[in-house]
């Protein structure tokens, strides 16, 4: 059997070299699939068919299996994120302290539902399964930064600032 040669990088974009680095570090072993997908997502912001195909071919993972993994884990996104992201924690402590009202207020203001991005690509509205800052509930991650004891007004103010940028 001829030795396996990984496929060429999809483009000259340097980020593919980082992706390839993760796979090389793991000896192009199949078990590096999730690690590599993490690298792709942190480099490109999301995963698309081309990147999944490249990773699957490189690691010799069947395409359907790779797609099954990508869609199993909610951390992976198949769509590019907005310029800004508001992630409202929907963990138990936050729920008990009214995080569902924050979500409803944000959905109404942006005209989208959780998991979506506004048409202008400015704001993504996400919910999280507990970020572990329960003692400050309800919690919102504004572009990754934890803001605790948030009110609906504060969420709307933040969205307003992002929307007019």
């Amino acid at each position, binding site marked *: 059997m001829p030795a396996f040669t990984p496929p060429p990088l999809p483009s000259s974009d340097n980020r593919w070299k980082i992706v390839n680095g993760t796979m090389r570090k793991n000896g192009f072993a*199949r*078990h*590096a*699939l*999730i*690690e590599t*997908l*993490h690298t792709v997502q942190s480099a490109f912001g999301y995963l698309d068919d081309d990147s999944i195909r490249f990773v699957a071919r490189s*690691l010799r*993972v069947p395409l359907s*299996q790779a797609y*099954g*993994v990508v869609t*199993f*884990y*909610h*951390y*992976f996104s198949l769509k590019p994120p907005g310029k800004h992201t508001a992630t409202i924690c*929907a*963990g*138990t*402590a*936050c*729920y*008990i*302290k009214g995080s569902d009202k924050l979500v409803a207020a944000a959905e109404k203001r942006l005209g989208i539902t959780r998991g979506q991005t506004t048409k202008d690509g400015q704001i993504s509205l996400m919910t*999280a*399964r*507990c*970020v*572990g*800052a*329960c*003692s*400050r*509930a309800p*919690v919102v991650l504004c572009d990754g*930064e*934890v*803001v*605790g004891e948030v009110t609906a007004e504060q969420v709307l103010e933040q969205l307003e600032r992002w929307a007019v940028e």
Partner: protein
Amino acid sequence: MTIEELEQVAKSVCQENEKYDFEVNVCMDLACMSQGADRLREALEKAAGASDKHVLVRRTGCMGPCSSGPLVRVDPEETLYHHVNAGHAEAIVASLGGAPVPELQCDLNDHFDRQVRVVLENAGHIDPEKIDDYIARDGYKALLTALTEMTPSGVIHRITESGLRGRGGGGYPTGLKWGTVAKAGGELKYVVCNGDEGDPGAFMDRSVMEGDPHRVIEGMAIAAYAVGASKGFIYVRAEYPVAVSRLTTALRDTRRRGLLGSGICNTPFNFDVEIRLGAGAFVCGEETALLASIEGRRGAPKPRPPYPAVSGLWGKPTLINNVETFANIAPIVRNGGKWFANMGSERSKGTKVFALTGKIANTGLVEVPMGIKLREIIEVIGGGVPDGHTFKAVQTGGPSGGCIPAEMLDLGVSYDALMAVGSIMGSGGMIVMDDTSCMVNVARFFVEFCMTESCGKCIPCRAGTAQMFTLLSRICEGSGTMEDLDLLVSLCNTIKETSLCGLGMTAPNPVLSTLKYFKNEYIEHIVHKRCPAGVCNMEAHASEVSKEVLA
């Protein structure tokens, strides 16, 4: 590194610390950080630099009462300051050596006095990114003692003697698990640390990994020596980036010190650890699903047996313990099994860390001896329910657990006692609910959680949780019937008995426990179309019916 070298490091850290007259410890855990702890630390460093006093400003892990953050503790006086911001830095530094700053002083004696700190003994005392800080507080002494003075079976014996049970929720005796892996044949074995803290409302493991990462690594290394493993994995949620970065730093420093790698402490023992990131799947807390995820696959559980102890990662014998379990190992090896067994209740030994959250005055992390009454945790340590509301229930065990009503608050916390009342110990989330929480709505919340987190492999969990959610939604919206309630109970029974893994088997718990203790709330919703807590919107009912007709 040898024990002598270790002691040398500890000594030099102490000598270094003695150069300072005061230590100002700043809690840099997530909750305090979200209230400006990093700016506070910078301001304190600036103020300390400008002052002629010898002051060491140190960042530490979680000090506990997060609702009082940002927190600062001044040593050697052990003065605790709460709600500190950068503007207070100069006043704090100026007060050193004199009277404390009165308006910042925090009186939480009741909160701290009832706690016993084993797992959290270093939290608030060391810089989590400095291995020498850990070594100065007896860090890695247990590992080196085990390697040089104890046999692997001696280590297992000590763990068995301690009575330690798995802190991930199941409560399986740790010594027994280690013994099974040790007995399993084969050259290659693995040790896996389950840091996939998925229970919403729980953050004990995050705080331990962020505040004292070396403690977890030391526990894993001792376990590896005991069971004969040479390779370890820490599986951490991707939602915990700080924990990942602290663990990465800790692993690098441990390798540099020769405490991981080959020939540790001039013995034939080899061990190294890799970090694996989760990707947002609660079911990966289940051990067979976690292993599938480490292998790069969908996190779908497999029927057991075979247990991972016999056939785990890539079919090799694998020991899986939770973060808090590993965090208990070093003190047990150092102090002996009997020391640990002296704490706690008859069948639940030692201490347990709980994340106390919800409608309670002092939210945060607490560590209490097993057997302590729930009332003491909630009313004394937690300071009770604030804002004039009344206590309704405490939820333990996350989506797999149950709600415990006020009349059961004198229950002593142990694996068996919680199980007997329809909840579980779980990993340690403890969420307090008051009269503004609707128990039907809470049950629906947990069932929705289980529905979206179900892997979909087995039918009872996949389709059953979805049906439970539909039935509960009907009740919450005012269109539920008493027949729906019977259907719900029958479903719960089948899902509990027939599901493939723990997620499905325990998914009905929040429903069953609220039905047991708060059935009147269900009846109110169904018969009188009324939500006693005023949470559920019953008016939606009319429009829902018309939609159903159209569909």
